[in-house]
């Protein structure tokens, strides 16, 4: 113990001064409108002066009577709770404030006793020792109360307002380019657009009315130099609460090894969960946690950011590690949308993260976050390129039956119709590869006169993808031996592409020029089809001798027979072909009808003498009706249909 010179006044004169000062202090203390701080100072001063007085009073060391009395009083107040199993703050506000007052009093006594220099006064030492022990008892108790309070109230702040991820999460797109065959693609593709409104949703992690209690405990614990204990307890409970919230969000704890081996289907679900969790954890919980720290620890300087970092660190690192695992995985095309979701989620949270971890200690988290953002940007680019490669290299060994809309066209068009939702992100990420692609896609839209939407990087990439698709479709069309079917196939698929562009958000990115051009393309295939299929058939009905008025019976018979054989051949073939779009099918039938029925009717009309059932296998009406059977995708034999008509 320090041996110091006594500074306690010993003369009567001093005693008077002390007494006078004491008197003034007591008088001031009765004033009503005092600030809390000032009142505290006066109380401290009061205690200090009374100590001096008692010390002077008791030269023999038997003094400190008043101090001892006060100590005994608070001792009773504090010790009484030690045998009680009920928590103080649960007992009522009066009990709590009485207890805090008692702790204040102990602290005041300790300060005063310390303020006096230590001589060999045994009594003083003993009192100080007793007071310190009492303070320790109280602090330990306050720590328990704090933990109890935090644990008890954290349960009540379960996030009832947050829609469960499963109801929010949209159906996941689980197919890869290779295996696709249905129409449900479109709905399955919808963007994982989890509530934008959850963005800045700060909640009360602890009910508002509890905050003042926590603050009052923080205040006395820090004032008594038990700040470390407060922080450890506070961090412990809050950290665990955050981890529980994280668990509620159904994040499987997966190692990188597991993630790299995972099937796409499950991985896609995990990626969705992550996107959701990231938004909720950072946007809601960390923001709220930060506010709680600010509320409770705002007055204690760097302690505040230290505690927040300790609470948040492992959870955010866990989320970042998942992101790292995804970013290092192979970037298959089917991952593109999920990767975009992940990237956009992080990009949206950058400002929050930078604000939450603005202090030096948090720079590590900030850095990791930005690193991951870059990593995911690269992944998006890689997946986008992989998508392009997949579109142009998707190969088939067999012709697509019926010449209908190929699954690849459906997949690609439905997939890219999701891109406009990610427009600004894709424009940002594809910027640097823009010039290469723009020069490849030599559409006039990419020129300097083009409008903004058709010349943006995404638009050029989109058109580059559809032009890859077109050339792939041309390759696929060659698998059909029948030239007419090649045209039907291309017509169907180009028409499908145009319809998809016209009927979706894609339109502004492709522009009217593209639509015109591609309309012309499929119409060209339509015409080519008619030419290839019907020209030779119609030619059979042609008048060989335009001069003469009618044909001889045998010549007429010959021509009739030739026509019906050719027609039946076409019928047999093309009823199995397919034009899925009813409008397109209708249009083609009408124009075919116009051409074929018209020629047939003219032919028969020119030779009225020979028209009888025996040599005319099909009437004009028959032909007109039969043409309606084409392109329905169900092969028919003409023999059956004729018999049907005759009966």
């Amino acid at each position, binding site marked *: 113990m320090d041996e110091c010179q006594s500074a306690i006044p010993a003369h009567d004169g001093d005693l008077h001064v002390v007494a006078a000062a004491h008197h003034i202090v007591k008088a001031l203390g009765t004033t009503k409108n005092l600030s809390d701080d000032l009142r505290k100072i006066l109380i401290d001063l009061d205690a200090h002066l009374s100590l001096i007085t008692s010390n002077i009073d008791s030269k023999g060391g038997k003094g400190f009577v008043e101090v001892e009395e006060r100590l005994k009083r608070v001792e009773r107040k504090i010790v009484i709770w030690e045998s009680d199993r009920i928590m103080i703050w649960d007992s009522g506000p009066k009990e709590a404030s009485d207890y805090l007052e008692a702790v204040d009093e102990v602290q005041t006594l300790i300060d005063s006793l310390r303020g006096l220099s230590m001589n060999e006064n045994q009594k003083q030492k003993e009192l100080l020792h007793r007071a310190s022990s009492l303070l320790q008892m109280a602090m330990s108790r306050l720590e328990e109360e704090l933990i109890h309070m935090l644990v008890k109230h954290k349960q009540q702040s379960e996030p009832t307002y947050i829609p469960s991820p499963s109801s929010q999460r949209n159906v996941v797109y689980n197919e890869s380019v290779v295996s696709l065959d249905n129409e449900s693609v479109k709905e399955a593709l919808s963007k994982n657009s989890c509530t934008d409104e959850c963005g800045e949703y700060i909640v009360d992690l602890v009910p508002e009315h509890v905050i003042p209690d926590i603050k009052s405990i923080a205040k006395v614990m820090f004032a008594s130099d038990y700040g470390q204990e407060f922080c450890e307890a506070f961090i412990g409970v809050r950290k665990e609460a955050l981890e529980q919230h994280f668990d509620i969000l159904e994040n499987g*704890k997966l190692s990188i090894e597991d993630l790299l081996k995972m099937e796409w289907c499950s991985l896609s679900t995990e990626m969705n969960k992550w996107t959701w969790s990231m938004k909720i954890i950072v946007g809601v919980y960390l923001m709220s946690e930060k506010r709680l720290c600010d509320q409770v620890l705002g007055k204690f300087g760097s302690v505040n950011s230290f505690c927040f970092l300790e609470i948040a660190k492992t959870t955010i690192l866990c989320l970042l*590690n998942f992101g790292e695992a995804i970013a290092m995985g192979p970037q298959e095309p089917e991952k593109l949308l999920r990767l975009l979701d992940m990237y956009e989620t992080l990009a949206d949270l950058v400002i929050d993260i930078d604000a939450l971890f603005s202090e030096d200690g948090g720079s590590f988290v900030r850095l990791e976050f930005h690193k991951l953002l870059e990593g995911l940007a690269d992944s998006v680019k890689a997946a986008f390129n992989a998508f392009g490669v997949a579109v142009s290299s998707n190969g088939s060994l067999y012709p697509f039956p019926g010449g209908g809309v190929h699954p690849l066209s459906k997949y690609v068009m439905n997939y890219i119709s999701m891109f406009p939702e990610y427009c600004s992100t894709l424009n940002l990420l594809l910027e640097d590869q823009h010039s290469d692609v723009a020069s490849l896609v030599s559409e006039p839209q990419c020129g300097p006169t083009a409008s903004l939407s058709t010349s943006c990087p995404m638009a050029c990439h989109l058109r580059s993808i559809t032009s890859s698709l077109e050339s792939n479709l041309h390759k696929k069309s060659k698998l059909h031996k029948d030239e007419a079917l090649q045209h039907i196939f291309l017509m169907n698929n180009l028409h499908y592409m145009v319809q998809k562009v016209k009927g979706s958000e894609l339109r502004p990115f492709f522009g009217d020029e593209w639509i015109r051009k591609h309309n012309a393309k499929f119409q060209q295939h339509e015409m080519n089809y008619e030419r290839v299929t019907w020209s030779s058939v119609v030619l059979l009905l042609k008048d060989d001798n335009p001069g003469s008025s009618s044909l001889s019976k045998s010549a007429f018979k010959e021509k009739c027979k030739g026509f019906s054989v050719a027609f039946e051949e076409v019928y047999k073939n093309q009823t199995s072909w397919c034009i899925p779009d009813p409008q397109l099918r209708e249009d083609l039938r009408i124009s075919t009808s116009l051409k074929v029925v018209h020629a047939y009717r003219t032919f028969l009309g020119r030779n009225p003498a020979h028209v009888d059932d025996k040599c005319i296998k099909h009437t004009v009406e028959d032909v007109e009706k039969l043409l309606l059977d084409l392109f329905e995708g169900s092969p028919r034999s003409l023999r059956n249909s004729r018999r049907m008509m005759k009966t």
Partner: protein
Amino acid sequence: MTGTDQSSFLGRISIRRNQVNAMEGYHEQEIEDLELFQRQLSDRFTELLSAPDDAPTEAFLSISWIRKLLDVFLCCETECKAILLMERDAAQISKPPLDRLIPELLERVVKAMDICNAVTNGVELVRHCQKLAEIAVSALEQKPFGEGQARRAKKALVSLMSAMHVDDKESSVQKTAERSWSFGRRSGNKDRHHGHYRSLSWQVAKHWSASKQIHAMTMNLAAPRGPEASCLPAPVYILSLIIVFVMWVLIAAIPCQERSGLTTHLPINKHVNWTHSLAGIHDKIGEEWKKKEKKGMAGLLYEMQKMEKLGQSLIEFTDSYQFPGEKEKSDEVAAQVAELAEVCRRMDEGLVPLQMLIREAFHRLVRNRTEFLDVLEQGAPVV
């Protein structure tokens, strides 16, 4: 090894590769590169082995020692990759036996990443211990010292001990109640115990086991023999071995989930010169581990061990303390407190940088894998 050493080594390989592609004696030069590399490795590990067992700074398995180990790891990784990949034709590393060895290496790399993450989490537990020890120190340093401070210190130290002796097999959240701070008379109320226990396994999958990872990483890890020992399989083996070794040390030193049977023999070929010191470190840590394993412990980290010993002794002191205390005893205690304060200081200085370094190793492994995959992809036959 300094930065310049390394850059000159890398420069040397780079120049070689540029010059010799069509030259005679290419293979001889490669052998020379490999030998030089192995000599450097040997030097570095010898230096690590020669660290003193007990010293205020740079002791064997201390934080600064582990940081050095990680530095060595990062250097080796760069150089080994240079030998393997620099100016190398993809076809060279995709033919047998490398077509088997490289994928095996990459699997080890992925497992090592998971270990890095688990260990980063373990460092958090060490930091928690540090905070508790700091409370004890500040209580024990109080003057005048009394029973209040003794109780305060004891409370922190008891928590410290229970945090240290977390059984790494069952560190799930449910178990927190029994292990957390004792609240004496109110301990019937379990709710109160929340928050005092930092779970170790929180970030990792439930059944993930550090020792199983190590075990899996050692599968098929065998030193190349015969002619293979002097060509490409050799650096693949070296890189694999160093990754496994460094991860093994990290797990042994830092709290980590499920480490039973960690003494599993690492297949270190003692007949090769460069592995002498490596094997030495391995044996030394293995011995330590055997001594401590049964007691349950936080790891072999020098600072943690020191903290454990000091903590135990200081608990005894606080238990028996009665005001006003004996003079002699207080001198002895003061020395211990000063020592504990010093341990805390070293942790305070070293743990965050250590965490960063582990993270750097993690990112390096990620990059390493990507680079190998890129080269392999180039070499893959075009379909």
